[in-house]
């Protein structure tokens, strides 16, 4: 896989408790990206936030029902990102998807080196 020059970065914001077919939405998105052979995807957990619903999401240390804000960052060529968008549209019921331009400086991997 090669990625160079100008690419697109997609950032998808939603909550940790959001589900897609009984599976955490973030996991479903990462799996979908892999299925479509997208160059890479990373999920980040925020510590506080609010979104379209204006409901403040804040992880509670004392309860298990924390709905922390999550962000999935996906970077690939525009063509690949366009392939992903229809699926995201269907999967992300409530959330934000933003796209921006990025310039790829480096994209490398070494087969089998990481254990």
């Amino acid at each position, binding site marked *: 896989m090669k990625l160079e020059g100008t690419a697109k970065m997609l950032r998808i914001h939603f909550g940790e408790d959001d589900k897609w077919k009984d599976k955490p939405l973030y996991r479903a998105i*990462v799996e979908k990206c892999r299925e479509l052979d997208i160059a*890479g*995807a*990373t999920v980040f957990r925020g510590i506080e936030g609010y979104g379209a619903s204006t409901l403040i999401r804040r992880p509670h240390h004392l309860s298990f029902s924390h709905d922390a804000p999550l962000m999935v960052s996906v970077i690939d060529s525009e063509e690949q990102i366009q392939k992903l968008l229809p699926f995201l549209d269907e999967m992300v019921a409530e959330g934000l998807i933003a796209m921006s331009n990025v310039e790829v400086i*480096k994209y*490398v991997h070494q087969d089998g080196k990481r254990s």
Partner: protein
Amino acid sequence: MLTAGPAKKVILYVGEDHQYHGQSLYSAILNFLFYRGISGASVIRGIAGFGADHHLHTMRIERLTENLPIKIEFVESAEKVEELLPKLSELVGSGLIEIQDTTVVKPSEESAKTSAKPVTPSLRSEGKAKLMRIFVGENDRWHDMPLYRALLESMRANDIAGATVYQGILGYGANRRIHKETTLNLSHDRPMMLSVVDSEEKLRAYFPILDGMVEQGLVVLSDADVIKYTHSLTNPEKKKEAQK
């Protein structure tokens, strides 16, 4: 890389208790030299001494070993020394810098592969800048140090305006391996992202160093507008007001 022949020996004298941006001054200087690709440097602690302030610093118990003299020595080519001097003079503050002519008889075998870059102006408080994101794995290492920490330190040593490390909870990258946090396993390899903002020139000047450190991962650059960039050191009154 240091070769046999004429060279310069630089000696900096500072106090052990002197601080630079929240870390001890001598380690800030050592970091700077390290990430600028100096072949080698030594820090030597004196047992007593005095300087411009004519204060005697000693190890006598009743005075509770305070601010002992520290000597930082390194040998480099004249050009490299010339290049580093402005920043070193700024770092050393009230301390002393001494340069001697010396001759390298036998250079040490291995030298760092990072190279120094000319100093470019630092981030202004507003305007156009670039945002660089670096994606690596938590377990990636550079010289026995976590790669993300080494990157952060090398950026600091190269005067990059600021960098933040984010830890991801799930992800995959170029090598198609899924990285995730597992509660039952301590040796998890989570995805890490460094977000760095500075002027385009400074980031581009830093690329060769970055290139030598990141063996696998993704580095992307995008445009950013700096709305505000301040720190309390230049604006102590504002900080006080904010705390009220």
